[in-house]
Each structure stands twice: as structure tokens, then as C-alpha cells.
């Protein structure tokens, strides 16, 4: 259990500055997820922590040590890769012992530690097999096992579940969560999958363009995204955005759009709203509901498509000049025909409002 601290980190590939002046502090025992689209710098950052990418500037600390220039093996880390990266010509057992063997641990200790990791991950019956003789899920468990035997302070995961099918991914996700609880080790986990991020993380760092956009708990990220990028990236189906400008009349605040006004008086503005400011209103699909509750505001939706998704359903249409989707319980009826106008309700205290130019939350 160690903390990881990244200070003023710069990473360049040729003339390309991939990561610029990045600061990040990860607490001991924390499960931190780096979330972002491909090319956002999240894997580069992870590789830098592992010592697999040279940094151009700044420092990386693990525990009490400045490991900026240390060899990967000396950093006290274990790492799991998307492609599993199992040594193909070695058995499962050899794969797991390789690192300990390199570190010249006594044979008996190697056997003991490998056996412990193997029983933790139910790998016992597979020990003499080669990677080619394993299924995808088994391979990834071996890869996790290989990281575990190192008894590391910090475990790094580089999209470990991306190559698995949906069902296995869910299973292994749960296993990882249990593992974290059991070991209590610090874990840094890179993914582009927001479900993994939301379910696994203590804190999520949403990255774009080599910059951490928001670092917060999953709840906070989901409920109060700091800018339009984070709002759009997290959540599925994605957040609905409606363009307009603020209108202050008689102590009421409205969003004035091309097609009518939406009441946002109850929105907890961080600064005093100014009249005429161009903004974007963000409404999650589940924030629009057919039945009102105390204090909710109405909005008119012109229906275009109804999609059943099993547990719930999606109603798509036009609302104040924007294309939006609404999440409904699947047993909701009657299903409105295309072209019908329906009144939907929303709680203005739960929406997000971003400046149209800077895209940051107001």
C-alpha cells in the first residue's frame, strides 16, 4: 500500500507533447481509474508510472521513493495488459514465477507465492498449460496472477478487460473489485469503458488531450461534471445538450431557446447568472420524466422514435430545438406515436449548465 504522486509531468513523443504539466496524487489503497477516449494520454500516463515510457520533465513518486528514472522492476509495481502479454512459450506456472525468478527469490518462496496467487484466482488446475490452451478469461486471470505474485505496492491495469466478451467482462470486473477489497493495494486502472470506471473506482480521472479534466468520485463525475466534455463522455445513452441563452426576469431564470423557454431557476449556480449569457443545458436521459414531482418544470417533447431496450425504453424526439433521448420504464404506456407532442418534467436542481464558449460548468 503506497501512495503515488505525479508532479509536473511532461511526456513528449518526438515534437508531440502528449502530456503537459500533469499533477496527480493517488492515496494509499485507492482504486483510481483513468478514463478517456483512445489517444487521450491515459495509457501513456500509466506507462510512465510503470517506467515503460521515458518522461521529459517532472517527477513520479511511489511511496517514499522518487522513481522517475528507476527501472520498471525496481518500482514495486505489478501490471496487467490488455493483450494479456503472457509469455507464449512458458506454462502458466512459469509465467507467474518468471518475475520472482528474475529477482532471485529462493525456489521454495517462489513456489509458495505462486501457489497462493493461483488459489486466489482459481488457477490451480491450469498451472501446467500454455497460454494458447487457455480461454480469454483464463488468460486474463493468469495475467492478473502474474502481477499478484510480485506482492507489489501498486498495481497497474491497462484496459485489462477490453479484449473479453461482455459477459466475462462483467464477471472479471466483480472479481477485480473483490481483489481490491482483499488486498487493499493501490490500483491504477486505465479504461475507455465508463461502466468499468463508474463501478470500480474510488475516484475517476477523466482525461482528454493529455489533461485531466476532472478528478472526483464516480457519483460526483456523473452528477456534477465540470465541463461539457466530461458530461458528454460519461453516461450512456449520452447527456442531452440544449443550446440557448440565460434570461433573468422577475427573480426567475430561464433558458431561452429558439423554441420556447425552459425554467432553470432552481439550478445551483456557482456564480450569479447574467442575463444574455450563451450557455448549454445538459439533461441526462433519466432526468426527463413523464410524471411531475414537487418543484419540477415542464418541457414539450415532439416524439420521433420509441426503442424498447428490455428493462427500460428510450424515447427519442425534439425538445426546444435539440435532439434528445428520454429514458422511461419499459412498462410505461401508452407509447406515443411518432409526431405526437408530450409534456416531460425535469428537476432543474439536478441538471448541468455549461458556458457555451468555455464549456465549463456554471
Amino acid at each position, binding site marked *: 500500500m503506497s501512495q503515488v504522486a505525479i508532479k509536473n509531468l511532461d511526456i513528449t513523443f518526438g515534437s508531440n507533447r502528449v502530456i503537459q504539466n500533469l499533477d496527480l496524487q493517488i492515496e494509499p489503497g485507492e482504486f483510481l481509474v483513468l478514463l478517456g477516449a483512445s489517444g487521450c494520454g491515459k495509457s501513456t500516463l500509466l*506507462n510512465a508510472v*510503470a*517506467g*515503460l515510457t521515458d518522461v521529459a520533465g517532472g517527477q513520479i513518486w511511489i511511496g517514499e521513493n522518487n522513481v522517475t528514472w528507476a*527501472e*520498471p*522492476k525496481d518500482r514495486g*509495481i*505489478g*501490471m496487467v*495488459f*490488455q*493483450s*494479456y*502479454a*503472457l*509469455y*507464449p*512459450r*512458458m506454462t502458466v506456472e512459469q509465467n507467474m514465477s*518468471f*518475475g520472482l525468478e*528474475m*529477482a532471485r527469490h529462493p525456489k521454495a518462496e517462489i513456489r509458495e507465492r505462486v501457489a497462493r496467487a493461483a488459489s486466489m484466482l482459481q488457477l490451480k488446475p491450469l498451472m501446467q498449460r500454455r497460454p494458447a490452451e487457455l480461454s480469454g478469461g483464463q488468460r486474463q486471470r493468469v*495475467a492478473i496472477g*502474474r502481477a499478484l505474485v*510480485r506482492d507489489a505496492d501498486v498495481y497497474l491495469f*491497462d484496459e485489462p478487460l477490453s479484449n473479453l466478451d461482455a459477459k466475462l467482462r462483467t464477471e472479471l470486473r466483480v472479481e477485480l473489485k473483490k481483489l481490491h477489497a482483499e488486498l487493499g493495494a493501490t490500483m491504477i486502472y486505465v479504461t475507455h469503458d465508463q461502466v468499468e470506471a463508474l463501478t470500480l473506482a474510488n475516484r475517476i480521472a477523466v482525461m482528454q488531450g493529455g489533461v485531466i479534466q476532472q478528478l472526483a468520485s464516480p457519483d460526483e463525475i456523473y452528477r456534477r461534471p465540470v465541463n461539457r466534455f466530461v458530461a458528454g463522455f460519461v453516461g450512456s445513452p449520452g447527456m442531452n445538450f440544449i443550446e440557448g441563452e440565460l434570461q433573468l426576469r422577475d427573480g426567475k431564470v430561464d433558458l431561452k431557446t429558439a423554441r420556447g423557454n425552459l425554467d432553470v431557476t432552481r439550478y445551483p449556480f456557482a456564480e450569479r447568472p447574467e442575463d444574455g449569457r450563451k450557455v448549454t443545458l445538459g439533461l441526462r436521459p433519466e432526468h426527463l420524466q413523464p410524471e411531475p414531482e414537487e418543484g419540477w418544470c415542464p418541457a414539450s417533447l415532439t416524439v420521433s422514435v420509441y426503442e424498447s431496450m428490455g428493462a427500460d425504453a428510450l424515447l427519442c424526439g425534439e425538445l426546444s430545438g435539440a435532439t434528445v433521448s428520454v429514458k422511461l420504464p419499459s412498462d410505461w404506456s401508452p407509447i406515443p406515436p411518432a409526431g405526437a407532442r408530450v409534456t416531460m418534467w425535469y428537476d432543474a436542481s439536478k441538471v448541468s449548465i455549461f458556458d457555451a464558449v468555455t464549456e465549463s460548468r456554471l
Partner: protein
Amino acid sequence: MSSRPLFPAHAEGPRPARLNLGRLALYLCLIAAAAAFLFPLWVMVTTSLKDMEAVRSGSIFGWPAQPSLEAWKSAWTSACTGLTCEGLRGGFVNSLLILVPSVALPVALGAVTGYALSFWRPRGGKLLFGGLLIGLFIPYQVFIYPLVRILSSVGLYGNIGGIVAVHTIFAMPIMLLLFRNYYASLPMDLFKAARIDGGGFWTIFRRVVLPMSAPIIVVAVILQVTGVWNDFLFGLIFAGSDNLPMTVQLNNIVNSARGAQEYNVQMAATILTALVPLIVYFFSGRWFVRGIAAGAVKG
């Protein structure tokens, strides 16, 4: 519009069998082409089995009335390969002595260099790779004279060491191309995992990379065995008169022969020289093709 119906009204079940002229022509073409390609081989074999009387009187196509291995025996033991008349035996041994180190050294060098370039990405690596690749296209004549001088100044001219050095120098680009491309196709994550497990440069090479290199080593060895065995130019210049490889001695048997030409002996000698690469080729067809195809792929 014609009045003929587009679809026969009674069509049902499998299509009636009909003689497929197209297929027949296809196979005829292929067989004719195969015959043309095999023709020189046939002539070589039949001629080598005849005596000179039969060679002079009969047709080169004909199978000998009394096949004999006399010509093979004299090609192996007594044909004149220049000043001496001891057959191709010596050349065969020379070729073997040249072959073994001239295959092992470039393959090992190509593997290590390719590994370093693909995984460790040292500074200047791309420049080295690009520079050596250009060497693939440059005519040997530009290098030869200075190379003779350089090698003789370090005592590597006119002996086995010299010819091995030359083969190593000129095999480097293609070996590097083969290994680098192969290693570039391996997942980088594997190398990263090994780094985290604490492997150093040589440990990762020996324990992780080398065990995965069997296919490309086979391809490289086949390519280099046929290349070295078939070499004529380097053997002629760098091996020295005591170490002339089989190809050079074969050419001597035929083109410096004085007096009556013994065509049967010449053909026997030719087959003997071609035998090693042909055997390698017939037993490794698929790998051989991979080798030449890999040489064709640009880096």
C-alpha cells in the same frame, strides 16, 4: 426481346453435368507450363546418365539406352576444376565449411539487432535500419575493391574467415528486415511485461523473445543457406584459391575445359551443385516462399 424464356420451365434439382471445357483447358495450360519448367531438369538428368557416345549420337531429350553413373563419379572425383583434377569433392567440402558460419553468424546478428531495434528502440535505430535497407539495393561492385583492401589489412582475405565476413556484411540488411518485421508484429505488451518482471536486455532476449522466434529463424536459415550455397561472386573473389566454393569450381569444370567437352560430366556436376538448395527447397517449400515474400515486403 427474344421469345425464348429466360428460365427453363422444367429446371429442377442439380444442374445437368456437362463437359467443362474451361477446366480442361486450364489443366492443359498448367501441365504444358510445368513441362516447360521441368524440361531443363530432365535434360540435365538424362545427359548426366549417358556416356559421351550416346550424348553425341542421340537426342538431348532421350532417356539413355544404358544409364550409368560413370559421369557422376568422375564429376565428383576426377573432373578438372582448374589446375587440379580431383572433381567437385573439394568444392563441396569448401562450400560446407563456408556455409555453416555464414548462416549462423548473420542469423544471430540479425536476430539480436532486430530485437534491439524493435523493442528497445535505441536512439538512431531508425537511421541504422534505413541505412542498411538501402544497402539491399546497391550493386555489390561498388563495395568490392575497398572491401578486398580492408579485409586483407586485417588478415581476412583469401580465407574462410574472409568469405564468412563478406557473407555476413551483405546478409545483414535482409536478415535485419526479416527479424525486425517479425518482432514488430509481436505485441509490445509482452516486452513491457518482461521489463516489469525484471528481465534485462539479454534475459528478455533469451527467455522471452528467442523461444518465440522459431518460425522466423527457420525462414532466415533457409534463405541464407540457399543464398550462401548459390553464391558465386563472393566465393570467387574472397574465398581464396584453396577454398573456392562448389559454384566456382563447377563453372571452372565447364567453362575452362580444354579439349573434348564432356557434357555428361558437366551436367552431373551441375546437378551435384544444385542438389543442396533443391533438397532444402523441396523439404521446406512453404518456408522458402515465406522467405522470398518477406524479402519483398518493404519495412
